[in-house]
């Protein structure tokens, strides 16, 4: 009994911290319509800053806390609002998600420059560890009491602010109608700024409380702490503070009971608890309509014709062959990684680009593909490739069955939950490879061709990419592609026109997962290895981000994104921090151009909003003056 109570106290304390994190999310979401994926990363930076002031510079705990939470948090919030978030008013969900993921990565990248992760850091609590009160034979430390009291105080004061003060009501209204708020004499940007300042303060407070409660100071742990906050916030439907509180405390208790009572061979499950709860919460709690209507981007990617895509594929193959001859051998390795990664990235084009379904778990499917490749018929059989496609596609379909009910942000969160659960519950366990090990993945012969040299394998990968890209563009021009776009543009109109929207989404999710699985099997073949760390949720987020930065509807952009993803660490001698930092900064551009870099290039080449000719189409027409212009229907199918 006493043990149970002890875990209960730990659970409530953890829940209190989850609540502080979740309340910040709720505040920023309800004041700006932006779900801040970087919320945990902000808390992480705050926790490290607190450590710096308190432990490294020797400040007392209270002034350090006050400076971080009451100065650092609000300043960060005001700057973010001004530089990034104000531009995102009414932006497509993919853009807001992309920008905040970018911020997350940039903060992780920057933090790993400042605070070397090989060093171990701890924070001394506010009170001496021995000072405690005893209730029912359970000792509750002053620090634990403080955390609980702070959570209650936070809940009460935010509720009072949002519901009983003029600025609070304006903060809640500004996301729905900024102009109406302006009419009432309150500056809309001021209300939005107040929301971000408060949200960032709460993120900082959560970070400090977490490390103060004796947890390790680790960049990733702190950044992902907020995922538990997501689950709590969804229980509160991203709006209700009391339900968020309830969700947070139940989650805290569930996690700690898992630690206390799960049999040792089921201990892995405790890591997946928040994710499973998030998934269940999304399923059973009726979702609110997403706040803030999305504005439609002015620039759209044109859809290449068959001729253009074949010419593009041919050019790509030539470049691939030349690269395989000319590049030094270690560059071959990194470019091969990049092209294989681009094949995984390509799976986002039909899913996110055409159908508007945001997935944060493509690398999970890639991991399943690599797993199937390694386990089926040796590790280098064409059967393995088929198994990779089949396994990833089947799991994708299973996940899609419940998840296709979600839209936009909620689908992103559901797939995030799936990615994190698979990460903790499968890839990082002995089900995958035995702890700390890896799987051997070979290269399958295709059409009687062996790809034993790295150079040959690169050409093979480029050919697969070209084929897949041509196939996806053909799909887009066909019935299925029109249905995808129609279901995304207006699901109600598509349904009343006879399109089975759910079936269409299920199909594209399955197809996308299968392609990611194939990419994963091929990625494993580059260096004959599949490691658990290759399939982390954070990498799936990075993938989604870089693809969005370059243009999620552009197969050219996706190739550049994939290859660039591996070239940056190569150019910076394997330092991944640069990758996170640069990619994160690139995300700022999304707030300006939702169609990404490729969309920007297209708009510069094409001009007016009435329809953009494809670059390929232009070149062809220029070089073959005698030919009649291509039918506008093909060129302008999407724009």
């Amino acid at each position, binding site marked *: 009994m006493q043990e149970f109570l002890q875990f209960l106290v730990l659970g409530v304390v953890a829940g209190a911290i989850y609540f502080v994190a979740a309340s910040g999310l709720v505040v920023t979401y309800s004041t700006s319509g932006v779900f801040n994926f970087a919320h945990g990363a902000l808390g992480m930076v705050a926790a490290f800053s607190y450590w710096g002031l308190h432990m490294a510079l020797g400040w007392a705990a209270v002034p350090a806390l006050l400076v971080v939470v009451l100065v650092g948090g609000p300043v960060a919030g005001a700057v973010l609002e001004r530089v990034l978030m104000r531009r995102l008013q009414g932006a497509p969900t993919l853009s807001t998600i992309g920008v905040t993921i970018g911020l997350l990565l940039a903060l992780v990248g920057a933090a790993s420059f400042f605070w070397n992760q090989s060093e171990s850091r701890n924070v001394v609590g506010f009170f001496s560890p021995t000072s405690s009160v005893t209730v029912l034979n359970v000792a509750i430390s002053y620090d634990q009491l403080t955390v609980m009291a702070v959570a209650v105080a936070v809940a009460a004061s935010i509720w009072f602010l949002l519901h009983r003060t003029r600025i609070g009501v304006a903060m809640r209204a500004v996301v729905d109608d900024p102009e109406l708020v302006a009419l009432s004499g309150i500056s809309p940007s001021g209300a939005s700024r107040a929301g971000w300042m408060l949200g960032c303060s709460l993120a900082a407070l959560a970070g400090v409380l977490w490390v103060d409660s004796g947890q390790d100071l680790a960049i990733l742990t702190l950044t992902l702490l907020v995922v538990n906050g997501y689950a709590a916030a969804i229980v509160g439907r991203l709006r209700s503070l009391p339900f968020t509180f309830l969700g947070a405390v139940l989650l805290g208790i569930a996690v700690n009971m898992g630690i206390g009572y799960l049999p040792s061979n089921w201990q892995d499950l405790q890591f997946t608890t928040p994710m499973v709860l998030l998934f269940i919460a999304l399923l059973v709690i009726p979702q609110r309509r997403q706040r803030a209507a999305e504005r*439609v981007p002015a620039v*759209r990617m044109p859809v290449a014709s068959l001729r253009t895509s074949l010419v593009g594929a041919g050019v790509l193959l030539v470049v691939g062959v030349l690269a395989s001859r000319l590049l030094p051998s270690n560059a071959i390795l990194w470019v091969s990684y990049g092209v294989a990664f681009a094949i995984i990235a390509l799976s986002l084009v039909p899913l996110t680009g055409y159908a508007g379904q945001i997935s944060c778990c493509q690398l999970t499917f890639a991991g399943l593909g690599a797993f199937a490749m390694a386990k089926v018929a040796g590790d280098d059989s064409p059967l393995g490739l088929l198994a990779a496609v089949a396994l990833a596609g089947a799991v994708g379909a299973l996940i899609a069955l419940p998840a296709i009910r979600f839209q936009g942000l909620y689908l992103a969160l559901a797939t995030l939950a799936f990615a994190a659960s698979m990460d903790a519950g499968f890839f990082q366990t002995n089900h995958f490879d035995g702890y700390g090990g890896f799987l051997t993945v070979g290269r399958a012969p295709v059409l009687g061709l062996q790809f034993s040299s790295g150079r040959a394998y690169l050409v093979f990968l480029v050919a697969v990419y070209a084929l897949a890209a041509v196939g996806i563009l053909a799909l887009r021009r066909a*019935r299925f592609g*029109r*249905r995808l*776009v*129609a279901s995304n*543009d*207006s699901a*109600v*109109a*598509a*349904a*009343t*026109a*006879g*399109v*089975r*929207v759910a079936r269409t989404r299920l199909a594209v999710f399955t197809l996308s997962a299968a392609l990611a699985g194939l990419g994963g099997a091929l990625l494993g073949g580059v260096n004959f290895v599949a490691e658990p760390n290759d399939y982390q949720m954070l990498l799936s987020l990075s993938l989604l981000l870089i693809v969005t930065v370059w243009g999620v509807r552009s197969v050219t952009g996706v190739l550049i994104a994939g290859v660039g993803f591996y070239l940056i660490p190569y150019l910076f001698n394997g330092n991944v921090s640069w990758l996170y930092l640069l990619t994160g900064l690139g995300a700022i551009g999304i707030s300006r151009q939702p169609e990404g870099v490729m969309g920007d290039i297209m708009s510069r080449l094409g001009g007016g*909003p*009435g*329809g953009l000719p494809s670059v390929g189409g232009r070149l062809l027409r220029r070089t073959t003056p005698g030919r009649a212009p291509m*039918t*506008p*229907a093909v060129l*302008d*199918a*999407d*724009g």
Partner: protein
Amino acid sequence: MPMVEPPDLAASSSAGDSGVSSGGDEHERGAPASPPALELRGVSLAYGGLVALSSVSLSVPAGQVTGLIGPNGAGKTSLYDVVTGLTRPSAGRVLLHGHDITRSRPARRARLGLGRTFQRLELFSSLSVRDNIAVAAEAAYPLQLRRVRRRPHSDASEAVAGQLERVGLADHASVRVDTLSTGMARLVEVARALAARPTVLLLDEPASGLDSGETDQLAGLLVDLAAGGIAVLLVEHDVELVMRICSDVVVLDRGSVLASGTPATIRQQREVRDAYLGQLAVS
């Protein structure tokens, strides 16, 4: 349940000459007691405490334009949402050619012959005019293996071409729809609804945003469609248009049917004038 085979109206570019008399079930065509194309029996809908529809019963016969009028908030669009399956009614039944479709999904209803347009335009904004129409046509002409040998897409593409021609948008086929004027966008919605080969067509204020020439063109089109056997239900604030082309008019007020009858009888009714027509006359 036998699938309703819709008459092949959509593929023909000229309306009114197809000779199909009614969009009824194969077995029941010509029978004296053939059910109305669309029938609502005691349909109610409540959002929390707010009653949007209260035991609405009405029937829409094939081969004519039926008007549905009423002040703003009377429940006209809610009724359309219930009929097309976007909203589940809290009580009552919806029948299409005598078949109960109350629990069918929207896409199933569309394939059974129910088409609609939206008051607030719901176009596939990133597709061209042609592709907007094609999405509906392709749902109505599913790919079948036995058809593959003789050009699988031809049925759907003929239907698209026919509809483009019919609403006069053939010259704009390749234009992205979000660059169109409201009037043209409304015509695209009508063409898209027609491309799905409906036997029952629900139109939600199709004339709003149209100039008088376009309105006349639309009126002619609707009369032609009805003559071709389609049951047309028309929600419209342009009372003059409603009175001109509708054979019957149903007046909805605060979620209930206030009156129904021919345009002439509707005009005479005091409560209708009080609830709606008088209000319009003042404005």
